[in-house]
């Protein structure tokens, strides 16, 4: 008896420690098990929907449509999670790896390609209604469909870019803006920019710039613009491998911008290091006569923030050899691990019905993907530039980089830094070409070794 007590006294610490570790280990195992279970067991409770709508009206519309669904489907509720574009990537990545991921999420076609290559995404093709498949633009489907026919996300808004201009400054300088029938070429832009660049108080410092462009992370803009110059940076070689080349069309594109920035000095140097969004206040202040590439959504910011008497307008896409532009769309996807993919897709079809698509596009001021929405009379309005945004649908085309393994890494590791150096005046176009070609090879090699296929 005594010996037992003394033994317990002696080994009390061990016993406590043992109990503690047992508890912690069981928590750990329980956690692992639930993480695994999430992909096997049938879940109940509301579907979680991560939305990235951020403009006030757009958030409201998404909320309204979700509420509507919840009223009509008491048996299958949807819980709306408000996400943000700046944090969504880390949120989703950790979600995919732990298995705790929303059942429906909003993101963009260029990036979900990477997720699909990692087998994170469900194939939505069996669930898409005939009506939706026929109504959404063919180019939009092309940007989210794998060669096997799998559809990795439903495109619903096109991130098409527009040219904004200030009609008052144009009139003052005696410049006539182009029309849809007679779009400007880049030479026309150069000429107009000369007239529109003005030193108002005569102190030798330019107060009003002909053009402006947010150049911080401009790879997206230049990739999409390159198509209108007849280039695309990515080319198929004889063996069917993809190769990155900076040839004449790409050099022409960079040269066109550099001419305004460095030689003519008609493009605002403040655009170097700024994002597209950050150019809007300067445009509103009358510092820029044109913003040569801006998201269509920026019109909402103009409507909201323009002062009394400020006028703005949208001009048709500038023509290099064509007016084509690369496509990138906002999408809704369902993760592979979701156990209720059919229901999730039902909700997506509801959210993106013809009528709702139009509402979403109008509230976010972005070009929709459905032909019926694009044809909506409200999207032909001239004053708000909708007529030109709707026209853009004809110019969309799928770049050869869409679906290319490693493109996301290439853009942020090779293209953006090189363009930043170029527009800071630290590199010549020849050096840009040489560097992009050299670095691309090493970045893309890692993906080619793994033999990933779109």
């Amino acid at each position, binding site marked *: 008896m*005594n010996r037992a007590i*003394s033994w317990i*006294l*002696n*080994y*009390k*610490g*061990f016993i*406590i*420690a043992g109990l*503690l*570790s047992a508890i*912690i*280990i069981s928590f*750990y195992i329980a956690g692992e098990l639930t993480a695994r279970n999430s992909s096997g067991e049938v879940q109940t409770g509301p579907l979680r929907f991560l939305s990235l709508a951020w403009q006030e009206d757009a958030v409201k519309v998404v909320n309204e449509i979700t509420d509507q669904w919840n009223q009509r489907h008491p048996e299958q509720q949807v819980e709306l999670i408000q996400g943000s574009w700046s944090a969504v*990537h*880390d949120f989703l*990545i950790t979600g*995919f*790896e732990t298995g705790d991921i929303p059942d429906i999420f909003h993101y963009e076609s260029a990036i979900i390609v*990477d*997720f699909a290559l*990692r*087998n*994170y995404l469900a194939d939505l093709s069996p669930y898409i209604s005939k009506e939706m498949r026929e109504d959404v633009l063919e180019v939009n489907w092309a940007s989210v469909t794998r060669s096997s026919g799998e559809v990795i996300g439903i495109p619903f808004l096109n991130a098409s870019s527009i040219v904004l201009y200030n009609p008052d400054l144009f009139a003052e300088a005696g410049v006539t803006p182009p029309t849809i029938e007679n779009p400007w070429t880049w030479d026309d832009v150069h000429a107009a920019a000369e007239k529109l660049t003005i030193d108002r108080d005569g102190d030798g*410092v330019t107060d009003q710039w002909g053009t402006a462009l947010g150049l*911080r992370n401009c790879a997206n803009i230049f990739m999409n613009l390159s198509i209108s110059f007849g280039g695309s940076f990515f080319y198929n070689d004889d063996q069917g491998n993809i190769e990155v080349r900076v040839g004449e069309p790409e050099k022409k594109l960079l040269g066109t911008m550099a001419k305004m920035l460095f030689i003519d000095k008609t493009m605002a*140097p*403040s655009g*170097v*290091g*700024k994002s597209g969004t*950050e150019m809007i*206040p*300067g445009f509103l202040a009358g510092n820029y006569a044109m913003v040569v590439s801006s998201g269509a959504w920026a019109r909402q910011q103009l409507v909201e923030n323009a002062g009394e008497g400020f006028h703005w307008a949208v001009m048709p896409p500038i023509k290099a050899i064509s007016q084509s532009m690369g496509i990138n769309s906002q999408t809704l996807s369902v993760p592979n691990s979701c156990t209720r993919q059919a229901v999730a897709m039902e909700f997506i079809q509801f959210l993106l019905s013809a009528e709702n698509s139009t509402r979403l596009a109008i509230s976010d001021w972005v070009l929709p993907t459905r032909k019926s929405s694009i044809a909506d009379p409200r999207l032909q309005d001239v004053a708000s530039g909708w007529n030109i945004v709707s026209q853009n649908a004809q110019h969309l085309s799928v770049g050869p980089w869409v679906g290319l393994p490693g493109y*996301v*890494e290439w853009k*942020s*590791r090779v293209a*953006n*830094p*090189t363009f*930043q*150096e170029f527009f*800071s005046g*630290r590199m010549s176009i020849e050096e840009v070409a040489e560097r992009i070609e050299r*670095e691309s090879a*090493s970045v893309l090699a890692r993906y080619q070794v793994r033999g990933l296929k779109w």
Partner: protein
Amino acid sequence: MANSVTLTRTPRNRNLDQLQLLLPIMVPVLLLSFIPLIRGIYIGFTDYELGGQINFSGLDNYRIMMQDRFFWRSMGVGFLWTAIVTALQIGLGMILALLLNQGLRWTSLYSVLMLVPWAMPPIVRGLMWRQIYSPDTGALNLILTQMGIIDNPINWLASFEWALPAIIVAGVWGEVPKAALFFLAGLKTIPGSLYEAAELDGASAFRKFRHITLPMMKPIMAAVVSLSFMWNFNAFGLIWILTQGGPGGLTRLPMLAAYEEAFRYGYVGYAAAIGNVMVIIISVFLFFYLKVQLKERTG
């Protein structure tokens, strides 16, 4: 009974007793800190990619790293940043501590004010400095243009000339208080009699600093330099908020590079390997630095 238990204790038993006391602490530390750490080190030797399986890959990651231009460039930036920030932090911290040790009025108020930057989380410091550096609405551009030093506002954080100096200033600002606080504590422990003796011998202020203050402060300097080196080499939050490693990767410190590898490009194994290399670099630096410092002390 109790006596008999006590009496039968042998030295081996006493060790056991000590172990018992430590165990309740050690188990959580082992499970929650040590095991994840070991797992992290292990992942550095695997080909783990997001969405893929974890396979042991030996030294492959390190072989890739040898030829990885992006990695070496970020290491270079990391050393430059660490060296400059640590040096400025030590120098300015020492000056601040000497001032505060002069027995001026309101010293305790100054000390509290001095600590404010350090009390802020790095993210908050970053947001504040981003505001100061803003090309349109920032205080710095406003002051400089009004004083006529510059004509046009400079986009400090996006400029290839200014981005690195800009983040260094923000970094030093936040880290000086830590050094100053340590140094102030150290200064307080130096016996006043040493200075009195030196004054009797007619020593100047500089000689007193050189021959009394500095030698007496050596152990504390060693501690502050080591801690700061580790902390600055591993900096993340402040830089991430200010530049995200840009422009053109100019401010991509090693920790940012590792983060990008894992979370942007999905190479988790490679990112962990970068972490392992950083641990080795820091350990080697500390080993030699502390060895030299300790030798001088005993000698």
